[in-house]
């Protein structure tokens, strides 16, 4: 309830600033204009299509990154030599800002879908690898030893102890990184795209339509909130044992 209260307070402050005439309409649209512009977006400019293409890009790039990063992270967390081999490079690559790759990726892959997917992939892959490796490496030592005394092989320990033990933390990692993937896709769309939420925002900037810009930003926030909620719900269903 307190969480909702702050949303209300925030909207009220915004309304007061704009309706009260404290801020020029050119720079900040009021909430009602914003909603009306939002409606126009859907009705006249096919904004639903923009949302769909952006969601597709995020999910596509993210799933691709996760599919490559989770197995590598698990291997690094489970086997010390593999970790020693990859860890320094991954730690270095993690600090390379994905958005700085955009000009390069445009050169390489143009401004098509491939470029968007690659931005998200670069932004997500190294983060997931490191966080999954840490989660797997943090498996309780005594559980691993118990499994060995029960006759488990090294492979059995990975499959039946390390994986299930780290699964909730891995799911949590994916939830976090998906949130970041949203930032990368919008940046990629702001710089070079002919569709998507980010593209709509650049278009609206050219027309000084702050109502549409704010509406676009809020849509991103809402989608993020929904995906976060779905992830949390799925985690609770999948890993009931990990709840306190």
């Amino acid at each position, binding site marked *: 309830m307190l969480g909702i209260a702050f949303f209300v307070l925030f909207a009220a402050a915004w309304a007061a600033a704009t309706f009260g005439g404290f801020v020029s309409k050119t720079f900040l649209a009021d909430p009602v204009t914003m909603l009306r512009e939002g409606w126009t977006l859907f009705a006249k400019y096919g904004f639903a299509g923009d949302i769909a293409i952006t969601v597709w890009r995020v999910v596509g790039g993210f799933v691709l990154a996760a599919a490559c990063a989770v197995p590598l992270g698990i291997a690094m967390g489970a086997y010390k030599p593999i970790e020693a081999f990859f860890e320094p490079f991954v730690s270095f690559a993690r600090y390379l800002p994905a958005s700085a790759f955009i000009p390069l990726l445009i050169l390489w892959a143009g401004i098509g879908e491939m470029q968007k997917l690659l931005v998200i992939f670069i932004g997500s892959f190294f983060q997931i690898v490191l966080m999954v490796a840490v989660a797997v490496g943090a498996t309780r030592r005594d559980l691993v*030893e118990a*499994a*060995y*005394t*029960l006759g488990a092989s090294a492979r059995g320990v990975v499959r039946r102890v390390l994986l299930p*033990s780290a699964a909730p933390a891995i799911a949590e990692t994916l939830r976090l990184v998906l949130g970041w993937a949203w930032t990368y896709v919008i940046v990629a769309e702001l710089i070079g795209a002919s569709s998507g939420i980010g593209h709509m925002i650049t278009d609206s900037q050219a027309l000084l339509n702050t109502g549409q810009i704010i509406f676009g930003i809020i849509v991103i926030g809402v989608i993020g909130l929904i995906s976060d909620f779905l992830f949390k719900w799925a985690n609770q269903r999948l890993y009931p*044992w990990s709840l*306190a």
Partner: protein
Amino acid sequence: MSALAIEGVGRTFPGVPGGVPTIALQPVTLAVEDNDFITILGPSGCGKSTLLRIVAGLDTPTTGRVVLDGAPVTAPGADRGMVFQSYTLFPWLTVHENICFGLREKTMPKAKQDEIAAHYIARVGLAGFEQHYPKTLSGGMQQRTAIARALANDPKILLLDEPFGALDNQTRSLMQELLLGIWETEKKTVLFVTHDIEEAIFMAGRVVVMSARPGRIKAEVAVDLPHPRLYTVKTTPEFSALKARLTEEIRVEALKVAVAA
């Protein structure tokens, strides 16, 4: 021939770079016969857990070797079941699944697994809790499950590292009777590490007393109390005499630690 032979097993931990290495265990030799129940009694930090971990294959000795049924121990295996002091049930598995862990590793048919699990669940008094996750169980119930899990694997020898150390006194005595009852009917070779004198006497056929660090075997005391043993045995004169003797042995060692500290 004895089932388990500990032959001159010693363990030295390398110190921090530049520091002196720590001798945790001086060479220990001990022969364990089939179906022996041996308790290893010693003050904290005497290396008794290290010795047990070496038998389990979780630690490697610096000197000597451990031989089980003629084969040297080099790694952990299903023939040596272990119950730890810390709660080591897999939190993502139910009681039933935990007990089946080792059986599944042997790719035993599901029906046979269920049959064995049901037997040991009944044996440790956990019927009705099969589908519970460990976090919903008390400490005593978790340790009973851990014992059932180790026994279900049908190991040649059962290793217990202060399994009741974290339990309250009442639960602890009930657990002692439960484990002893299982041993009396199912017959197993058992190595049981503890620092509790009463526990060491009550459970054992033979008590091995270890000295303060660096650990070595200081005395071996046979316990000839009749089976089946009930908690009432703890108030008999024979029990008291053994307790007085072991208390004296341990006290000397504990004093050494206290003086050194």
